[in-house]
């Protein structure tokens, strides 16, 4: 029921743990001590809620005790005029280097598993 009556972070967390389990299986089923996540500013995910959901869902499973390192990826755009890649602050899409408004989306909506730390046999 937790999965149903949750924040959407709960379903995201369930997908994270599925991804962790799949990768763990590819590495001989070793115990996972740490998992790294890269979550973009534009992914619509609240990092603290996600962390809470991950801990709740991992408890009493083979992933219990694993810690989660969540890295926030900034909202970025690239300037089509000068080529600079810049962080979008306060939703201002103009280039921070040359002020051009001709810019394109680059990043900020990622949700990725970025690493696993596994116990050595």
């Amino acid at each position, binding site marked *: 029921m937790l999965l*149903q*009556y*949750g*924040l*959407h972070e709960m*379903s*995201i967390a369930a*997908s*994270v743990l*599925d*991804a962790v389990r*799949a*990768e763990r299986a590819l*590495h001989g089923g*070793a115990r996972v001590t740490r998992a*790294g*996540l890269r979550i973009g*500013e*534009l*992914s*619509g*995910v609240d990092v603290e809620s996600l962390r809470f959901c991950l801990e709740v869902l991992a408890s009493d499973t083979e992933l219990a005790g694993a810690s989660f390192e969540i890295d926030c990826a900034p*909202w970025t755009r690239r300037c089509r005029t000068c080529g600079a890649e810049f962080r979008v602050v*306060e*939703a*201002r*899409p103009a280039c921070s280097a040359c002020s051009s*408004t001709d*810019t394109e*989306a680059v990043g*900020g*909506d990622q*949700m*990725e*598993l*970025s*690493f*696993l*730390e*596994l*116990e*050595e046999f």
Partner: protein
Amino acid sequence: MRVPLERKVLSENDRVAAALRERWHRNRTFCINLISSPGSGKTALLERTLAGFDAGRRVAVLTGDIQTDNDARRLSRYGFPVRQICTGGACHLDARMVERHLEGWPVHDLEILFLENVGNLVCPTSYDLGEAVRAVLLSVTEGEDKPLKYPATFHHADLVVLNKIDLLPYVPFSMELARENVRRVQPEVEIVEVSCTTGAGLGTWMRWIESRL
């Protein structure tokens, strides 16, 4: 031992969504995902849209809600196939729900499939449903700063529909500021203004759909 990875968290959803997208591409079906807060007028817009199509058009709607089939009942009056997706608590549709609700539904040669997402400006954002375009509705009673408060949702929009413009005389809403805020978050987005009550702007919306087929 540290293993570096670049695995998408929603890879399973993305896989199903990619298969759906491939299917729509093959069948020449234009699939549109409608997202907004609860009460912005997604169902009203679909009612006016369905009413505007000739009976022979091959159009269908999958409508998502946490509970009730009220929307499916509202929409089924127009004579086109409509199915309700009851998420039973989930605050968004995912690709698997769409795939499951298409099973056993004779909608093989559709021109247009509308996916009415669960009313929510946050959660549906991360879930690709295999749509060709994403339309985000914002009604004038909600305030012009919604795009800045919910940038993730507006950032992924292909079209923003500003709804309930008939109420502009009664609410402190600046259309100019709303448009500016939408464009700050997503400079390339198209914007249409409509009223599902008076019908204003619906011609533009219908022409936008037809232009994408």
